[in-house]
């Protein structure tokens, strides 16, 4: 388990604790969406999304939406929880897209390298 994952889980616990402490016993935090968004953001970071412009853009969106959701969860209230859930759903979608874009960039580079290898070999073979 990485430090980042540990930190994410600790923050989730903190938000959940804050929400419950808010006295809204009937509104529950969107745990599933929180975990899925956190996982996709983590996956995008591990895939190197920061280094791929389009992937970095979607990772940034995911982070911003996740951050807003956390604020809303911390504020408590049914409306806030619902809005946070929807934001986290968006964040998860952006995170997954960021992962795919980062992986695709690696595949693209690998394909280009393979073609370059052919040219290099053909040059050496002449």
């Amino acid at each position: 388990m990485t430090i980042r994952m540990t930190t994410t889980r600790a923050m989730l616990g903190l938000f959940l604790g804050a929400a419950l402490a808010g006295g809204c016993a009937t509104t529950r935090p969107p745990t599933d969406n929180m975990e899925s968004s956190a996982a996709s953001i983590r996956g995008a970071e591990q895939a190197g999304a920061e280094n791929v412009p389009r992937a970095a853009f979607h990772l940034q969106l995911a982070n911003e939406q996740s951050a807003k959701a956390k604020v809303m969860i911390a504020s408590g209230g049914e409306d806030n929880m619902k809005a946070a859930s929807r934001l986290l759903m968006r964040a998860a979608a952006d995170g997954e897209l960021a992962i795919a874009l980062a992986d695709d960039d690696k595949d693209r580079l690998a394909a280009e390298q393979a073609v370059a290898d052919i040219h290099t070999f053909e040059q050496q073979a002449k």
Partner: protein
Amino acid sequence: MTKRNLIVSVLAALGLTACASSPSRELVDARSAYARASSGPAARVVPADLRKARVSLDAAEAAFSSDASDQRDLAYVAERKAQLAEVLAKRAEHAGARVQAEATLASEKDADHAQTKEKLERTRTDLVVAERDAAAQKQRASESDTRASQADTRASQADTRAAEADVRATDSDRHLKEMQLEFAKWAAVKEEPRGVVITLSGSVLFASDKATLLPDARTRLGHVATALLETKERRLNVEGYTDSQGKDAYNVDLSQRRADAVRTYLVSNGYPPDLIVAHGAGKTMPVADNATAEGRANNRRVEIIIAPRVEASMR
């Protein structure tokens, strides 16, 4: 309701209807994204992911129809799902291109390897052929050297034989000279084109009408034989002659028997028989006048002709 209130109510109703029927920007984007994805390679390459996008879009459309509060969020997610399907399709294409390029590279490497191997085999074959040719050339050179050596040896042997022949010829010539000096006392020795001719008087060798050598003649012929043995490589012609008196047939027979007697004596003293020919010539080829007693005495003779050296060396 006043006229003014009616107008406001109608406008409000129209406005609500317009709001309810106008899709959000997110939904418009989602529809566009899905249309783009479904018309591209995603439908073929990642149909499952495209289906997920369709499901998301349907959910967004349903939310829009029911005017649900989360319709914009669902549309947002649907757009991302459609974009994700597109990216996954591209990723699959990139992966396929990489695999194909790697396969091409491997194939080219294999072909190059095979070509290199073939060249190597050709080079090896050429090397073997070259080595074989070199060995054959070396063998031929060796054989040529051997033949040259043998030719040299033969030439050397020929030189040796020629030198020996020269020595023998010199010795033979020397003996002839010695014979000439030795025999000059009782025989005539002269050089003629047919060879060295030793002329022995018939009266010295034989009694009258006889073909048996006189004892004194044997002694003298013994010296001749000894001298001739030194030159025994040469062919000898022993020719008997008579004077003109008497019948020709008799004279021929007598001269033949006398020539034979001399030949037999020389052979008995060791001269090779195959090198001596005896011939009775009768009264032919007189060397003096048969009209006088002295002339007839000179005509009665035996000639030993020693063939020239060249002729002898050709036997």
